[in-house]
């Protein structure tokens, strides 16, 4: 009983310190050295099983997926050609204005480990840590949009808090109108809600939401999601806006870590 009291008091202390601050992160990264190999071991097993599944996949589906990938590749490269022209034009206009912008950001390729974390946070574990250039607060993207930010790092792995976590807030803007807002995650479902949007805002369902780059954690201009619901309650000062994230939060495996220090002018 006495031992339990000691442990309980210690636990309460660590919980309250860890919820409020990051003082315990050194302890966390020391213990991670022991614990990360288990993460990698589980991921390896799951990867082996899914590799076996892929191996026995039918030839037909393989051909189909190759075809669709080829068309997608063609479309993307066409877009990329236009992008490089636009980039040059933009840079030229910027020099005319006298405000240089850095478009290319430093990007690290990472992979989400196939493990489940039962922690009360919506988070994933990726295979890049402090030794490979990841740092706390770094933004994470997948091919279709913003995914989250790094919450804690150890030497060879990091925990990423997803944008749909209720404790996560992301500065965004509406692509069509330039209206700025804050996208906050939700407790129960995998959607975001925009906070502090005035009721008279000109929005409609289907509008693209992009990251604004304000706050300097996330680089600006990346897609965050699409508006799926826009409701005004009489008497309320702000509208209720629900956004479905464009990044595939449950499925994507290959992700990009983007350094925000080169995000250019906001």
């Amino acid at each position: 009983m006495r031992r339990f009291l000691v442990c309980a008091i210690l636990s309460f202390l660590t919980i309250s310190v860890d919820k409020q601050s990051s003082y315990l992160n050194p302890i966390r990264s020391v213990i991670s050295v022991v614990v990360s190999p288990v993460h990698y071991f589980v991921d390896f097993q799951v990867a082996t099983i899914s590799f076996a599944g892929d191996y026995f996949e039918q030839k037909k589906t393989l051909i189909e997926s190759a075809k669709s990938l080829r068309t997608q590749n063609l479309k993307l490269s066409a877009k990329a050609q236009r992008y490089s022209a636009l980039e040059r034009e933009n840079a030229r206009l910027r020099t005319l204005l006298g405000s240089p912008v850095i478009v290319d950001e430093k990007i690290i390729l990472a992979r989400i480990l196939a493990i489940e974390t039962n922690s009360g946070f919506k988070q994933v574990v990726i295979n890049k840590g402090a030794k490979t250039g990841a740092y706390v607060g770094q933004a994470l993207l997948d091919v279709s949009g913003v995914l989250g930010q790094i919450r804690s790092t150890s030497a060879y792995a990091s925990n990423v808090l997803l944008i749909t976590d209720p404790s996560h807030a992301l500065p965004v803007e509406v692509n069509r109108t330039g209206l700025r807002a804050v996208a906050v995650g939700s407790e129960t479902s995998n959607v975001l809600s925009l906070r502090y949007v005035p009721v008279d805002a000109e929005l409609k369902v289907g509008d693209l939401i992009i990251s604004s780059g304000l706050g300097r954690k996330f680089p600006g201009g990346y897609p965050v999601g699409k508006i799926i619901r826009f409701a005004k309650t009489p008497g309320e000062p702000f509208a209720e806006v629900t956004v479905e994230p464009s990044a595939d939060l449950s499925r994507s495996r290959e992700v990009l870590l983007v350094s925000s220090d080169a995000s250019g002018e906001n």
Partner: protein
Amino acid sequence: MDSFSYGFDKKGSSRIGAGFILFCLFVAFMLAAIPLPSWMESWRPCWVALVVFYFVVNYPQKYGVFLSFVTGIFLDVFNGGTLGEQALGLSMIAMVATTYSKRFKIYPRLQQSFFVFLLFLVYVIFLSKIQNFDVSILAGFSPIGEALSSAVLWTWVAFFLDEMTRRFNLR
């Protein structure tokens, strides 16, 4: 550090025991992290808590509250959760297990499972309250699912670990 030596280096003969315990915990950690389909998510058994409960009930001299606390800290880092929540939960389980150790062992199997169900229900609700205080306990009935699957698995885990300890000669 004191708690470590208390558990592991008491006698020369407990060397195998420490290795065996570490191996079981390793497997439990792995099972806890394996991705499940989303409909099974709220039925995931608390593997680590089950293994800790087994060792504390059967070997309270070897595996006590302090070691459970340390295991909990490791589990917290493993889950990426708040440091201390699992430590608190597991030391609570260990406390109950040491208190009821002798009585629990003479219970019939069914009653053991019921005991495990109640204890784990408290443990899971406890954890969900620390993790997010303002979400309703009954959202999705997930605590009942987790406690129930743990209680159903208890018989099998106990049987399996009994067999293993007999083979590895833990005592």
